[in-house]
């Protein structure tokens, strides 16, 4: 399924990219240039469209990388993605260090880790080490987040 879906998605991407490429604003001086801001994006867009079309028509390769997870594993991937998106939401609210600890805890649980020592020590230890290295030793200012400021 993915073998066919990816070339189709690439074609859709190429069309959208071309659409945007042709909409790049040019002043009269730039428009007169042999190679302007639109030229290479247009060439790339057409190139991808043609190659994706060829890829969609051609038979898929016999040997593909082995990724044959169960439905549970695909759900686990979705949960990992949700945890990453949550990390992005949490950074401006709770600050980087709490967000990193929360991300690590969430991904460990999603991945199936159940040992309490690992679940406690890995997130706290990683966040503390990163804070010590970056904020204390390298003296990089990291926004503490809206909740703590």
């Amino acid at each position, binding site marked *: 399924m993915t073998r066919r879906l990816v070339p189709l998605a690439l074609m859709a991407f190429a069309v959208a990219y071309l659409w945007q490429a042709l909409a790049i604003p040019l002043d009269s001086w730039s428009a007169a240039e042999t190679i302007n801001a639109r030229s290479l994006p247009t060439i790339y867009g057409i190139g991808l469209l043609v190659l994706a079309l060829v890829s969609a028509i051609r038979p898929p390769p016999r040997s593909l*990388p082995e990724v*044959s997870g169960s439905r549970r594993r695909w759900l686990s991937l979705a949960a990992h993605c949700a945890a990453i998106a949550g990390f*992005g939401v949490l950074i*401006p609210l709770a600050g980087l260090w709490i967000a990193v600890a929360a991300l*690590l805890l969430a991904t460990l649980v999603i991945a199936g880790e159940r040992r309490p020592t690992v679940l406690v020590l890995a997130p706290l230890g990683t966040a503390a080490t990163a804070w010590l290295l970056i904020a204390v030793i390298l003296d990089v200012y990291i926004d503490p987040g809206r909740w703590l400021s």
Partner: protein
Amino acid sequence: MWEGIVTGLATALDPANLAWVFAGCLAGTFIGMMPGLGPITAIALMIPVSYSLDPATGLIMMAGVYYGAVFGGSTSSILINAPGVASTVATSFDGYPMARRGQAGRALALAAYASFAGGTFGAVALLLFASALAVLATKFQSPEYTLILIFALSSIAAFAERGQVLRSLIAALLGLMLGTVGTDQSAGVQRFTFGRLDLTDGLSFVLVAMATFALAEAFRMAVAGEGETARPRITHPRLHPGDAKAVAPTVARSSALGFLVGVLPGAGATLASFFAYDLQRRFRRGGETDDARGIAAPEAANNAACSGSFVPLLTLGIPGSGTTAVLLGVMLSYGVQPGPRLLEAQPAMFWGVIVSMYIGNLVLLALNLPLIPYLSRIVHLRRQVLVPFVIAFSLLGVYLTSLNAFDVYLMLGFALAGFALRLAGFPLAPLLLGFILSGMLEENLRRTALLADGSWGFFLDRPLSLVLAGLCALVWLAPLNRLRAARQREQDPS
């Protein structure tokens, strides 16, 4: 040149730099041993650490990470038949069966000594040729740069694995397209930014590299789940009597081949290791030492190729592989512009990086032989622990380079796209290469067009550009020839 070597030795032997080479080799070996994590991921994961160092030290550490990761990959290839990197796949062909026969220590020792010999050959060849090539490269102008960039991109197709030409080209095109996001440098117009300020400076290479390699690999591991791995007994790494004599000619031949293949843009360590293994098979004599040579050949070749891939990077500023593309990104983020002027402008860095490669090889040998039995426990680290750490470190690394939460979402999107491409059999190294070369290609092509006043014949006016145009044509003909040969074989199997 000798003056340069002395400068390089002084830089590389600085205690702080030595300590960072050591740390880089250790970290590279450690990361490279983890199945699926290769030199690109290792270097990408170490970028946040490198930012705290001065440019010369940072690059010296990264060279150590590169070598360490390539060597680490051989360990997981030999012990559990799970190559950490594509360039060590050929090592597993004879290495894993040897380990299963209870000779894991011998296989690891063969890999370590052959890597050292290949790396040493590569470093010496780099010392000899780099300055000569840098002098030649000063004659390059924008038409030559444009052609050599086209050559590097064309080589992706020529050197792609069988059946991967089309996918490699698509990946390279995607990389070129991603490179067009942001403010156009010549006209100052916004391209593909959708009015977002976060995108006006373009996409960060750290983000693209971490998303498509580290995070996409973590996703693959999460979906693939825990695999069954055999655990061979790891004895102290030691060669058998007669091994050194038996593998010496193989190592010499493979090192020379590896370096030459490594110099070619787009070829790299993977192709070098397969070429060397294939060549070794043709020289098979039968007997006990055949598999020893089968391990030594790809290991010597891939390490020599690592040094070879630094030739176009340091002398022309053009990365020949995905790994050197990431290294170029690291250099640019330091404000260091590799190329013909690097030798004149920053000789300490130029020679320091080259000399530290040799020192890195020595460190690897000294470090890995006694530590292999302990370090190799990493290959048994459970994925349920490995995946969360890869995710956390890659996101932390990207956030720290920009301090912008928007990059987290961007990275998630790119990682999912990278994962889908991998699932459909697309190689991702050409994508990274295309992304890095995109800006350079556009800049040089525009400059050439301005110089030539719109006449494309300008590419053929200078002898050097004529030679490069010929090389590009040859590279384009290579896949067509392969296709024709394959069709002929299909029509006439006998």
